[in-house]
């Protein structure tokens, strides 16, 4: 996690998680949140990460949960988690809390 493992992120308020036709979607609903045309579709791993970004848990904790749950090497999970959080952040769907 390149030293950012202690960072804490939270889901932003104006984003709604929907399940539509078996697909989990993040739908931004407020003008100040993300690009309103950008709907994220999450797979199972993305959904779990989204649920874990609760504004209390540091990324290290999220990573540990992923490694345990999905039985994956820590380096691989760390790179994927980091890239995913960066994308959520760039899209304005999460915010850094600490």
């Amino acid at each position: 996690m390149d030293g950012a493992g202690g960072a804490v992120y939270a889901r932003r308020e104006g984003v709604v998680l929907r399940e539509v036709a078996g697909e989990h979607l993040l739908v931004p609903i407020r003008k100040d949140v993300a690009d309103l045309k950008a709907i994220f579709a999450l797979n199972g791993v993305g959904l779990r990460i989204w649920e874990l970004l609760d504004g209390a848990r540091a990324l290290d904790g999220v990573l540990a949960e992923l490694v345990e749950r999905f039985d994956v090497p820590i380096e691989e999970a760390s790179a994927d988690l980091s890239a995913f959080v960066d994308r959520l952040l760039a899209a304005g769907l999460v915010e850094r809390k600490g």
Partner: protein
Amino acid sequence: MERPTSPGDVVKARLSALLDRAVAQRVPLNGTIAMTHRCHLRCVHCYLGCERQGPPADGELDTAFWLSLVDQVAQAGCLELLITGGEPLLRPDFALVYERARRRGILASVFTNATLVDERIVRLFEELPPQLVEVTLYGASERVYERVTGVRGSYRRCLGAVDTLLDRGVAVALKAVILSDNKEEVPAIRRMAEERGVAFRVDAALFPCRDGDRHPLDHRVDAAEAVALEMEDESLLRRTAEYFQQMRGLPPETQLFSCMAGLTGFHVDPQGTLLPCLMVSTHGFDLRRGSFREGWDEVLPRFREQALAPGYECHACERRFLCGLCPAQAGMETGSPHRKADYACRLGEARLDVVKSRLDKSHDAP
């Protein structure tokens, strides 16, 4: 562990897959609701006719019904919801229902004449933006616009609201209905949209009133003339030609309805009847007596099962990809969804002419 996201997972590619799955699973992805058929304008061509003038409580349902409906359709998988009418802003609870839809993660759009847009509505759309607010301009000039709407002051109120919404960053699109009353101004209406940098479309389709009054049809323009006006939009002509090329080889349809109505689409009218689409008046389910899920699962599938009547002409016609073929609309005009509507047929012919000429030109190009 699979990657939490894969390339291209943002929007389009995934939404296309989502649509495929929604069709396969019959998920009500796209709906329209009309909380009222009332309207304070008196447009000469409107298919709602006398229904526009009903008293406020005339069969309309209360706020609790509409809020519950929004919750139910969200639960069932509705992603896009169009709030139309009548004029939806006549309902004092429009904002409550709209807000509920947005907070449920539904992408809401609104068809409105915009003349009732006030600061409260602008703020609502700023805070919880719609996908689109679509406004019809009935004329480029005050004289022609109000000749169509029959209400003095409506032109200025409409344009004022459109410009305010645009200034405040709300997504607005403009539309023109081609009428004998305004056909000379359609190019100027198009320019008004271009000047504002907003999407624009024209619509040549007029229908008899739902009560059978055929008065709106008096305002139709000759089909070839209507098509010439719509095809002034070069990108529309290109897209139409491409679409025709893509579709023309398809085998004839085997069912009466091959659209999305009742498959991923639904409509709910002001009296709470769940219908396959806005244009259909059969196969309804009374949502005051049962849930959306019951109506969707038990009644609307029967709409999809309608077979073609012997002698039906349209399912194998080459022009069906261009005429806007809709058996429900044909039914409004001819009394039977199995009978072709001559005006739609003429629109199809006129479009086929321009499309073929376009395709010939592109073949001749070096």
